[in-house]
């Protein structure tokens, strides 16, 4: 079992109604983290986090990065104590 911390920004923060959370995961997998987050925060979070066409992480207008700034994907593994940051992926204006 590992502990993974999450930081939510922008729309993620609004949907989760919190800036930070932590999750205890049985398996060190992004897929499990995504499942736990959507279980906890409901349908809106699921619609934000998961692409309904592929059942993978939603790449459209979002950005999920590890502590080194690398984008994570659904098949990645996680380390104990790691922080994953959930951001809106938009530029321009």
């Amino acid at each position: 079992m590992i502990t993974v911390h999450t930081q939510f920004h922008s729309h993620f923060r609004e949907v989760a109604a919190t800036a930070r959370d932590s999750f205890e995961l049985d398996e060190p997998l992004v897929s499990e983290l995504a499942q736990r987050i959507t279980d906890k925060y409901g349908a809106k979070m699921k619609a934000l986090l998961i692409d309904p066409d592929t059942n993978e992480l939603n790449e459209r207008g979002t950005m999920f990065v590890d502590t080194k700034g690398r984008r994570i994907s659904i098949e990645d593994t996680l380390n104990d104590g790691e922080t994953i940051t959930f951001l809106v992926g938009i530029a321009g204006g």
Partner: protein
Amino acid sequence: MESRLLRVNLTTGELKSEAIPHQLFERWIGGSGINNWLMWEHFLTHDINCDPRGPDNIFVFGVGPLAGTGAGSGIKGRITFKSPCYGIFGDSAGGGKFPYMVRFSGYEYIAITGRAPKPVYLHICNEEAMLLDASHLWGKDTAETHALLQKEHGTWPSKTHTLTISQAGENQVGIAGVVSDALRIHARCGGGAVMGSKNLKAIAVQGNGGLPVARPKDMLSWSDDFRKKLDSNEAVYGFKRRGTLGAVEMYQHIGSHFWRNNQGNMFRGDEIRSDNWVKKYQKYSEVCSSDCFIACDSKYKIDGTESETAKKYIGETFRRPEYLTTGSAAGALDLRDWSEVAHWGKITNDYGIDNQDLSCSISFLMELKQRDLISDRDVAELFGHEQELRWGNMEDVEACVESVVFQKNTFGQLFRDGPYFGALKYSEIKGQNFMKYAMYGKGGASFTEEMRPFPTWMNNMAVASRGADHLKGIGLIEKFQRKDLSKKYFNGRTEAADLSTPLLKGACTALVENQVALLNSYGVCLFHWMLDPGGYTPQDYYGKAFAAITGIDRTPEELMRDGERICNLEKAINSRIGLRREHDTVCERWMWEPTEEGMYPGKVAADMFNTVLDEYYEWRGWEKDSGLQTRAKLTELGLDDVAEVLAQDRALA
């Protein structure tokens, strides 16, 4: 495809309506593609090395075939001209209702040449166009001018929609933009100075005409699918709420802001976050045009409860700042209260001036003062009186803004064309080299984002046809690390999404430049595409809407070739002006001075710059040493006529 062009010769007062041949859409798609062609044609009979502020320059307004049809993909109008600040190809986009109202008035394109003997404005109502006296509008800002024109022309057969300049444009300030309906600025490249130099204060349009759609059922079916795709993505709702302000947190997290003239890359203080804006300032959402399924715009009205600083702006109402307004205010100038950021957005819009070049001109001078490279006396000489230059001080910032807009003093005059030319002239005057502190890329154009860790973005700053800019080839694959898209476009390779390697960064610039050229020629908003509803494919998904509306069937490969052709014409215009590889460059700080903070410290452009640029030329099929186009590439794109002109001008490899 039926479409009309209005030609306006301001010197003679002649107005001429022409049908645009269908073949032009086959070759140039529409929108910016046709604007570019009208500019190219104009400079076959006029000196391309003319003074951009002189009567020989051309000013084109155009709007693409998807705009206003109900496709739902947003609308962008485009202005195209030779840039008075950078001296190269210039163009700029703006949304809102004005672009499709031009179509409803009976035209898609307006090409303006010459110079009126006295201030005029152009009024078009259901195909009837006339030049009217603008002496009562001269000296007014964009909001006042818009209000007066709306009052004068009323609401029949439609409300009056406008494109106006302010005092900055009248004073031919090189970084002056053009504002649509007093709300949305075509900021880049100095279109306002071109209008001002032509004594053209405004364009006002009214109309209730319809728009041609070749296959209405196909268009409605596409539109329905497009809406469903957008609605299925919760991130689109996030974008509706915050617009591009949602980027503030991401940029803060990865270190992509431009703080104090890019001495840093993170905002200071806790206030400038999109959450705080939404909670304290956002009063209601608004759709920028009726042809948009997202509606990301919103309004604020300050009531003084938001913060202590906000009390200074009680009653002020305007649009929510977009990211670059925020990046220039909270970043370049270090303004730390949302009310000041909003006020900066409003005054730069009302004065019709580009907040990128303007903020970088001010932050350049503030940095010189911070480093004691100039004295209080030097500053007093520039402003004609004692003037403080404090980071984060709105009064000091406003003094600088008014200096430039009204050309009040030496500072305003030196920096009328932005930080590069201002710094160059000031270095000469003082006998010192201050260029290390001037932030710019190609053409001397500036941009308030951290570029050093992002090789595709940096390459865009060096090669964008209209001068340093992120929109021409926006590097989303890289910044958002979209390995899926890298694989899709580069035969399974992932390097375009990997910040640690120069590989595929030049290729990615070329790819996205072609895609963006296509979107700009359709006349749609880039944000719908960025939210990726159709799999990030303007050549495929959007191509179906283009076919339904115009009746022009194209394969995705053909459309990509069309985008490439459009980019090559912009390049050819710059090559005729004399631009070569050495002009594809960026400023000293970006090139040599390492980032000290953010997620990617220790980065400089020089690490990858030449490798990326070489690769860009390779993917473009251009000659690497000179940066010039080859006859083979132009022939492949069906541009033999362009190659001939370049050969005559010795601007072909």
